[in-house]
């Protein structure tokens, strides 16, 4: 047996084949698999099991109730209120962030002098913990002594009832979310913008395309994968948003900012209805899985635009 054959045999023994993995494969993947099983897969199944029980603090041990929690959810107006709030938050937050993020990316792509400093400052909100952002903005918007209201009054205007009115509180939550996360969209889009080949733009210029046409017909299509990626990422994040709500509005007033995450938290950790809370969480998972699959598929069908 030649040396080459011996080496190949040993490699096959250690790493195995595509169909029959060898020891080394399991050894290398093992820790990762173990981690996933313990911290992701097991909790996933455990919470699924939980969602099929009537476990509360009172009962202690939950009885299997099948899909009763899910059936109850579907006729619970509070669930639909939370779902609607989540949808509103995701739609408006992400839309505003995408528009602002792209605009900022285009602006900073002009390579103005000192732009890198502003860019750095712009990213700071993104580095903060959402719960801190919530508490900080709640203080800034405090109607009695908040800095924002004080500033508005100084210029002779009447500040809105940021977190006190049903109509305004969701707007405030969306604005604060945009303040924190627009930089994320900006940085993704800006990075893509920097990587675009200049040849296309030069060709367009030679062909007499103006700035608006260039943006609409060339820049925007080439940025689409980055924009969709940022939008999907942000949509998932905004949909799960809990800590910002907890710190800023605590779901109120009159449940006008209670999102699905907050609703699940309330049921689980305030009312100790663990089974019901798990069902809410699973509904969220389902919505997210469907939503992201659809959106990511949309990215895949347009790869040509990115090249």
């Amino acid at each position, binding site marked *: 047996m030649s040396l080459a054959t011996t080496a190949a045999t040993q490699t096959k023994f250690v790493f195995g084949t595509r169909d029959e993995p060898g020891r080394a494969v399991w050894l290398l993947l093992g820790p990762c698999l173990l981690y996933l099983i313990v911290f992701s897969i097991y909790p996933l199944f455990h919470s699924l099991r939980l969602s099929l029980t009537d476990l509360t603090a*009172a009962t202690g041990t939950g009885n299997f109730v099948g899909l009763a929690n899910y059936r109850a959810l579907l006729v619970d107006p509070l669930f639909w209120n939370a779902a609607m709030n989540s949808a509103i938050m995701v739609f408006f937050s992400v839309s505003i962030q995408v528009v602002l993020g792209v605009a900022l990316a285009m602006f900073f792509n002009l390579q103005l002098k000192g732009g890198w400093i502003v860019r750095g400052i712009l990213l700071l909100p993104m580095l903060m913990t959402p719960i801190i952002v919530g508490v900080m903005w709640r203080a800034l918007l405090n109607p*009695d002594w908040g800095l924002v209201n004080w500033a508005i009054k100084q210029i002779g205007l009447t500040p809105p009832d940021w977190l006190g009115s049903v109509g305004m509180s969701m707007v405030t939550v969306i604005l604060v979310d945009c303040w924190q996360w627009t930089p994320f969209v900006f940085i993704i889009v800006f990075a893509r913008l920097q990587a675009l080949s200049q040849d296309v733009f030069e060709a367009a210029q030679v062909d007499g395309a103006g700035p608006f046409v260039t943006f609409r017909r060339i820049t925007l299509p080439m940025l689409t994968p980055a924009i969709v990626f940022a939008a999907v990422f942000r949509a998932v994040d905004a949909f799960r948003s809990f800590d910002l709500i907890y710190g800023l509005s605590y779901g*109120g007033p009159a449940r006008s900012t209670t999102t699905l995450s907050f609703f699940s938290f309330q049921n689980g*950790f305030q009312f100790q209805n663990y089974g019901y809370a798990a069902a809410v969480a699973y509904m969220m998972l389902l919505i997210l899985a469907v939503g992201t699959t659809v959106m990511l598929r949309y990215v895949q069908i347009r790869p040509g635009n990115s090249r």
Partner: protein
Amino acid sequence: MSGKEQTDHPRPGENAAVDTGGLTRRDLMQRAGMLGLATAFGGLGGTVPLYAAGFDMKKFAGTKINILMTGDENDHRALADMMPKFVEETGMELEITSPALGALIEKTLQNLKADKSSFELIEYLGFLTTQQVGGGYYEQLNAYIDDPAKTPPDWDFADLIPAAMKNVGIFDMASGTVGKGKDVYGIPGLHSGSVIYFYRKDLFDAAGLQPAKTWDEFKAAAEKLNTDDVAGCSFIGANDFSLAAVDWYTRFITTGGVLMTGSAKEKNFKPQVNSKEGIGALQMLIDLLPYAPKNVTKYGFAENVDGFSTGKIAQMIFWSTIAGPILNSENSMVAETTATTPVPSGDGKSPRAIQGGWGVGIPKNIDPAKKDAAWLALTWITSKAVNRYSIEKYNIDANRTSAFTDPELVAKFPYLKDALTAIETADTIPTSLIPEFFQLNDVMNVEFNAALIGTQDAKTACEKVQTQWEAILRKAGHLA
């Protein structure tokens, strides 16, 4: 250990009759107190032990006790301050874990239901006594209390406020009734409390007003005292636990309201939120809006205490333990000009409010070898000296009659007299007898807050609460 095997022990408020060498426990307490109380707080760094001599406080030296307690109030701060003294006197170590209420409940339930609790002592909210003590998770304490070998002689059981003891400590397992019988499962701690009426004496005097005794007088005073700088009154108007529990419930029961009829056990536990008194109590709050701070619908604990302390509110009813700092000149601009009195009431009705407070118990599922040590630690943290320190330093409404009536403390904090009366006459909210208490409270706060904001009227809000409560109670099996 069954409750029937226990010897009778003195109920709080009764004269103690435990044989301790010819002296009753109260006698011992009084004598020891002459030495102990007078010297205990010459300073935290003092060397005089908190307990009288003759009891081996160090028998569990080296043992580590873990306590799970609230981090939302000042109890944990007072205890942390006292830690060096605890270590010095007992030789034990006390590890404090003090999360916010939600996490505290979650952590408590996890530990109570585990094979073995990580915490030898757990502080539970009085509203959860039925759920947690009634669930059979805590050690019965009668045998410890009655045993002079386990209980320091100057730990005065009879001195614990009887109403607080009934609210968090005494439970009849057979009937599932809190406050019934003689079986003790928890000790009031680290604070008790109810609701009292805070008012600006200087403003009332200047306007020729007396503190309100009725709700009509309260409103009239609010109207008269309301200026651009000072709101005529305030209340918890935010979607906050105390909107329902303090402001609405106090007005409700002092105008003749009865929150629940029937019983959960009989499956006829029916709410009366949409009763005349229920709607009336909410309407009272709505009617006060013109005289309250402009943003009162966002006012919770902190906003009200801050507003009052800085002189922007003329009167309000509030948890005495939270608002105590208003009477402390270190924290308040109006400490010298604020007075207290019992809450107003409806014509011909007695002033009273909701019973608050906490209890501390020893979970059954702790290491058996640590139970005696846990009890000793519990007696230490609920001792007179710790009570006194908590009041003096943090204005916490502690849980001993002696602390509320201590002449020196009363001279410094006159509100203690009213706070004690409030605790003694307070009413245990009936919904706290079922595990759905927080869910019911949340529904009420959301709807009442919406009414205060102006999106619905009082009647609609109360009807909505009634409907939602009935649905929750039916689902939980408390209402057929």
